[in-house]
């Protein structure tokens, strides 16, 4: 299913626990490192780098492929994709083969074939969104920076940090 609404994104993030991040970089200036570090230190997710060129990031072991990760940890709840759009379809095929429950294409990672493959295989598909921004939207992070979360609620604990 293509995840389109705010509540669908919130539900996906709430039911997920493991994130395999394809293209995570150890270079602190790269956006993928920023997102990796945020997920690792500020969220409950078990985040793992998928990158054949590195051994680890901040002490978290990296796996060369999604399949290698799944062999040890089982299918990831979310495959988060930081790759060129032209490589997205191959990542989608890997994610499907590994039994991933959802695939999350980061900003600009837009590839119609990748989206269609994942959708048809029954994965939840998020396109052109940042997993860090969306987690922060639902847990008060955006709000601390004066960013428009779009959320309105008068419930106690409307934003759980």
């Amino acid at each position: 299913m293509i995840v389109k609404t705010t509540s669908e994104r919130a539900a996906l993030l709430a039911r997920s626990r493991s994130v395999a991040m394809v293209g995570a970089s150890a270079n602190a200036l790269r956006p993928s490192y920023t997102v990796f570090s945020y997920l690792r230190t500020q969220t409950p997710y078990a985040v793992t780098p998928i990158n054949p060129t590195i051994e680890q990031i901040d002490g978290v072991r990296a796996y060369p492929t999604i399949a290698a990760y799944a062999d040890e940890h089982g299918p990831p709840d979310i495959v988060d994709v930081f790759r060129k759009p032209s490589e997205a379809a191959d990542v989608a095929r890997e994610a499907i083969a590994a039994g991933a429950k959802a695939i999350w294409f980061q900003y600009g990672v837009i590839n119609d074939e990748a989206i269609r493959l994942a959708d048809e295989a029954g994965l939840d598909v998020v396109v052109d969104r940042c997993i860090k921004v969306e987690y922060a939207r639902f847990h008060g992070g955006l709000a601390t920076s004066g960013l428009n979360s779009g959320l309105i609620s008068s419930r106690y604990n409307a934003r759980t940090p």
Partner: protein
Amino acid sequence: MHDRAFGFATRAIHAGTPPDPATGSRATPIYQTAAFVFGSTEHAAELFQLRSYGHIYSRISNPTVAAFEERIASLEDGLGAVACSSGLAAQLCTVLSLAQSGDHLVCSQNVYGGTITQLSVTVKRMGIETTFARVDDLAAMRAAIRPNTKMLFAETIGNPSGTIADLPALATLAHEHGIPFVVDNTFATPYLCRPIEHGADIVLHSATKFIGGHGTTIGGVLVESGRFPWGNGRFPLLSEPSPGYHQKVFTETFGEYAFLMRARAEVLRDVGAQLAPMDAWLLLLGLETLSVRMETHVRNAEAIARFLRGRPEVAWVAHTQGAVFTFGIKSGREGGRRFIDALELWSHLANVGDAKSLVIHPASTTHSQLSDEEMRSAGVPPEAIRLSVGLEDVDDLIWDLDRALRA
């Protein structure tokens, strides 16, 4: 969790202010603190490297101020906002986020006198030059744009001329040249007009005016749409490694948030023109009643414009939209002075957008730094009197104007 798109009045009351997560307080607490304790050294490092969200020091962000920022961003349909200590501070932070020495700006000449002096004197001294052009002369605006121009700036409703900017046409012009269209929306407020819906990229406010609404608080804010392509090669301050932030490339690290992050984390941090928590709280309170106040402001202003148009002492009335407008008295400068000195209920002061009705003679006050010629080019003849129509009984306001016109 729901997907309802709430209306304007609902968001004016609720956006940015869920119950306080620490206490359940329904009113937004005033977080009167300079700094915030870190959870751990790792947490501190994440915050300083801009990898995590959270507060460090109230010069950069503060929960009460952030609540105001989110609310105004919601009302303007923006991606986010950065509050500043005044409208002019928000304007300066916008300029410094986009331009540096050697760069150039294009600005409507039908704008607030303080904007003209900020750009043509103080900003010019920083090596950033501004060309002013009539906001209703698209050809002149186009001719003013240079290869090093970094923004096109106009007011929705010109202060005090009332000139209405053609927002879609100006947005198209700016975008054809790869530059953002920046709109000061102070006089319209998002209740009357949301410039981002008409193509604007950045919206500025003097929140001192209708947003606060009661003449109590100096504040400003910038709102950004998140739609401008900051990586188009024309904005090296955003798309090249920043020496002020660990060589971070804002467009690469923050994507659509690049401008807002740089405006806050680098420019506001270094300029130090932040909004105070108490002031943010007063502005939040003001926004809760924006819809109902603006209805009455506009209704009263229209009634007063009608009254003035029917008076033999009045030469002209320049009311277009909103509640701030000018008119001219036939008896000229001297008659204008007599008129203002005879008023009982209207307050003679240099502000607009108060619940109280306000009056001023721009030539001797707000625009006194401008020559007669500059005033005429800004659409404010020297005999103009500016009114900011308040929320009193309109019959009482007209009673007072009638007395003063006969004086």
